[in-house]
């Protein structure tokens, strides 16, 4: 795990964790590292012994902490060949966390995130249009509409990400899928935390998703790529607007 100066002093933190003697403290600290971007989605956590040392707890306590994260769907643990614990989802940020994150990112950085997302997203849509067979599209259509039935911002964000990941799955490229997993964990929480939930945003996202599905279903790679690019652009602009309005209210 990478560490930064912004983190609490390791010894002090270790002592605190030890005193609490609680797997949840460890789970929260690891989750926090993910929220802060110190650990990215798709990354493998360091070996248990190393992590336990880092947090100054017994390996048994750390294991319980990992079990808590598994329950929350934040990490998965595989044994064997490609074994280890992997980050599969960034914890959904609180309003304060996402506000801080938006303040810390410049518009230029958000634009760059948009550019990268469009590049990966539109290619996955194009390839999905070329490679997916009709039977696989029922599932995609189902996922396209699940953003409007999700009961909370966190579940809507998950549903939104899941749709984009499914497009990448249908593109049949593991590299693009891994890139999409990482991009989704960056952009989507910001979108749902700040801009949309409760407004008419979910419906408009659903409409855009369905346009993408229609283009993929028609086998028109250009149209699918275009629909995806427009959709990601709209998403990113919501986030940039949210960032700009934060700056207005704080000045």
């Amino acid at each position, binding site marked *: 795990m990478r560490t930064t100066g912004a983190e609490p002093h390791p010894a002090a933190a270790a002592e605190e964790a030890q005193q609490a003697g609680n797997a949840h403290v460890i789970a929260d600290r690891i989750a926090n590292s993910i929220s802060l971007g110190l650990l990215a989605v798709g990354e493998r956590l360091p070996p248990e012994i190393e992590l336990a040392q880092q947090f100054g707890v017994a390996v048994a306590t750390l294991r319980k902490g990992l079990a808590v994260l598994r329950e929350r*769907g934040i990490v*998965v*643990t*595989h*044994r*064997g*060949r490609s*074994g280890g614990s992997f980050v*599969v*989802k960034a914890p959904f940020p609180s309003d304060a966390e996402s506000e801080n994150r938006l303040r810390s990112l410049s518009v230029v950085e958000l634009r760059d995130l948009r550019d990268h997302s469009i590049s990966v997203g539109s290619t996955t849509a194009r390839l999905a249009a*070329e*490679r997916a*067979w009709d*039977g*696989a599209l029922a*599932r995609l259509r189902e996922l396209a509409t699940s953003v409007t039935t999700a009961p909370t911002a966190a579940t809507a964000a*998950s549903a939104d990400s899941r749709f984009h*990941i*499914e497009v990448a*799955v249908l593109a*049949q*490229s*593991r590299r693009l*899928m891994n890139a999409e997993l990482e991009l989704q964990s960056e952009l989507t929480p910001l979108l749902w935390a700040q801009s949309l939930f409760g407004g008419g945003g979910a419906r408009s996202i659903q409409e855009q998703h369905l346009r993408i599905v229609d283009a993929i279903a028609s086998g028109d790679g250009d149209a699918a790529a275009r629909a995806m690019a427009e959709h990601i652009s709209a998403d990113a602009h919501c986030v940039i607007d949210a960032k700009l309005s934060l700056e207005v209210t704080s000045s």
Partner: protein
Amino acid sequence: MSSSPSPLEAAPAAELADPLDESGVAPPPEVDALSRWFTRAFADLDTLNADFCEHLEKASSPEDDVVALARLGRDGIKKRSKRFLAEHPAADGVGVIFARAADAEGRGVIEWWERDASLGVHRYAFGLNPSGDRFYDYEKIEWFVMTFGSGQHWITGPYIDYLGVDEYVVTLTAQSSVHGRPVGIAGVDIKMSDLERELLPLLQRFPGRAALVTTHGSVLASNTSSLIAGDRVRPAELGLKEHPLRASGASVTVVYE
């Protein structure tokens, strides 16, 4: 990984799968070799499945639900899977995927064994809780839909098994029945890169372009950059000869110049 152009199992297959194509003309020997590869692959799956079913039947009684069946059969399935993976270097994982019980909140039940770096096997843990965030909703996947109930052999893929083993694979499936009723399906995963290593030597025997295409028109493997694995094609529009490998039980067609 085996570099020999052998089918999943090294022993030569005696059966000639598709003696005649639709025009009544005997296919060239290159097509026969591919046909034998798939025939052998499914024959090996059938043998594996029969052993799984026999073991499950001995380990359980007819009243047991799939949860109990999987638990009682685990050791035997592991042992047989380990042997299969040792004998079939191209196979990546094997096991039994059970139909979800109607009761008990319909938790998924899978006994799946994956190859290890150290010649061992390990059980693969899937997300099997339907209300979980990473639920592996396998009853909606093509291999389950096409094989369970119908009992037919099926080749699914190529596909990225997201939330499953997360690899780019094809899956060969057959139905498993225990105490006289279908309980699930037995499957073999082959990574696309390994399938390519197996089939490329056979495809390169063709004098011109040749490819294997699934029922959905997805290319499984070919000897040309004009048809790459994952591409979707309409075989009829390629202007190539077509030979379906029906007798092998594989839903695959050879197209060749």
